[in-house]
């Protein structure tokens, strides 16, 4: 690697391809992506819709398996895992933050944050304790027994962040985390994410907002299922080849 670093490699993908079938027609969402992500890195993926960034995100988050190519997560070959192992992998090592929060509306804030720990088989007492601590960190201690639809967008996204963090994942994948928020709340959330990064959490975020992308250390621009260019400095909109 050209840039000087002594951080360990967390993710290593070589020639990643992913083809979907929409009916009979194959759709090549990824056409050979090589990427490395180091532990503690903060990376943003940019690109227009259809560029393959969502597919990239799903693969990075172990929600999906590549059609071709190799994907190693902390040395583990993801292609070879079955559903049980892949689910466990997602559960313990990946935290998702989505644009639309994706909280379960029938569960309280507390229960939503506890949920990943439940699938991890952790006892109720420990779950409660950990969830409470995380919710305290995102300043939602007063909302524990509320339901997501009783909360504001910013609060919901903080719950989602707490849920993502509660398992102490190796990586946080944020898909347009500020997409549904106003500027002020968006900034709050970005501050929260930047704070996580400072604590050493690896973060990959997908966005097409230049302002959001500029929070990251590294920006990757994707187009037509490939990486088009990579930046290691702050960018402006006209630097992107659209």
């Amino acid at each position, binding site marked *: 690697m050209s840039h000087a670093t002594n951080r360990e490699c967390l993710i290593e993908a070589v020639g990643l391809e992913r083809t979907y079938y929409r009916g009979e027609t194959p759709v090549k969402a990824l056409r050979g992506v090589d990427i490395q992500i180091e532990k503690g890195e903060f990376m943003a993926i940019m690109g227009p819709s259809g560029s393959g960034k969502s597919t990239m995100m*799903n693969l990075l*988050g172990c*929600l*999906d398996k590549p059609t071709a190519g190799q994907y190693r997560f902390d040395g583990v070959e993801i292609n070879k895992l079955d*559903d*049980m192992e892949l*689910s*466990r992998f*997602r*559960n*313990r090592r990946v935290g*998702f933050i*989505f644009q639309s929060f*994706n*909280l*379960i509306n*029938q569960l309280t804030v507390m229960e939503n944050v506890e*949920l*990943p720990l*439940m*699938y*991890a*088989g952790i006892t109720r007492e420990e779950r409660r304790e950990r969830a409470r601590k995380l919710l305290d960190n995102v300043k939602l201690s007063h909302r524990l027994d509320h339901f997501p639809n009783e909360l504001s967008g910013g609060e919901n996204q903080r719950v989602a962040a707490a*849920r993502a963090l509660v*398992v102490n994942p190796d990586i946080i994948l944020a898909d347009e985390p500020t997409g549904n928020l106003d500027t002020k709340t968006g900034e709050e959330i970005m501050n929260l994410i930047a704070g996580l990064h400072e604590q050493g959490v690896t973060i990959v975020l997908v966005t097409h907002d230049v302002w959001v992308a500029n929070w990251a250390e590294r920006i990757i621009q994707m187009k037509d299922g490939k990486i088009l260019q990579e930046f290691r400095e702050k960018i402006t909109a006209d630097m992107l080849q659209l």
Partner: protein
Amino acid sequence: MDYREYLEIGYKSITQHKLRSFLTMLGVIFGVGAVIAMMSIAGGAQKAALEQIKLLGTNNIRVKQVELTGEQRDEAEFRGSMGLSLRDVNLIPQVVPGVEAVAPIKIFDVEIRHQDLKAPGRVVGTSTQYDEVVNFYPEEGRFISDLDVLEAKKVCILGVDIAKELFKLNNPIGEKVKIEENWYTVVGVMQTKAIRKDKSTVIEVRNMNRDVYIPISTMFNRLLSFEMYDNMNELAVRINNQDLVIPAAKILERMLLRTHKGIRDFEIVIPRQLLAQAQRTQQIFNVVMGAIAAISLLVGGIGIMNIMLATVTERIKEIGIRRAIGATERDIMLQFLNETVFISVSGGIIGIFMGALMAEVITRYAEWDTVISGIAIVSAFGISVLVGVVFGMYPAQKAARMDPIQALRSE
């Protein structure tokens, strides 16, 4: 994830949609209700039949006189059949193997009097062995003795109802009662015999608590005209081994046909066989009710499956979220399967109560005995679990196999 967590999820999901869950349960409620009602009716009928058979005695054969009419009667007179006679009574133990005792039963309806009290009763002329054959003994005093029969003594043993009506709380033993023109000394009072009041029974059993027993010889001497000597109403035969009952009955029938000159003026009743017959009738009833229950459960199960499929579609997003944060296919499957089982078991429990209620109503208005057994409750519970598993499997699998990415993307 331990099982309690799934249970909790199931419980929550049901309580969040109370009306829908209740409507979903209806099929199972009725199905299980029918199962319980059916089994309690069957259990009651079984119990009733057994009780009746016990009244008659399982090791007994009853020979009943058949009233002949018209040509048959002329034929009997012509050939000289005497009907059920004392001769038969004496002959049976010699001819039929395994006979322990034979008691003649001659019934004569008459009023029993004591001082100025009267009670409608039934005088039964019989012999010493009656109490053993019928398995019905005096509570106080004694039964007819050999000497009573030999000397045609004027003694009697009162049925418990008659004793109460004539003597109230006084001890009747040693007292005298008047039957027709003669006074009889009371030497015993019979036990209380359980009787059944309903009409759903296959065997007619008279209320033996109104019987007054006197020696058959006394009856011939004092109550009957000469022409009525023969023609016992009934002979009760007790066999010493229950396996011999049916072969003995066959031999008995052949013997009686011979002594009655080939005239079939008697009928052989084997309580044991009647029991089997009653059970066969019961089986038909069970098949019909079972079919109703099965159809109801099938419809109920399909109803549950239908709702669960809708629920799965409605909750695709939730499935996607759960999968993203680490739920395995198996977790999702168990979650939905558990919800279905929760619904069907809840329905089953309500159904058990409803079945019990139906049984109660049937007992009260149709006057059928019903018995709700532990087995019925356990099997109803098992059936509702089974319905949940069988009909929940497909929706649960559908939920589990959903592509997490598409599930997450759906709105």
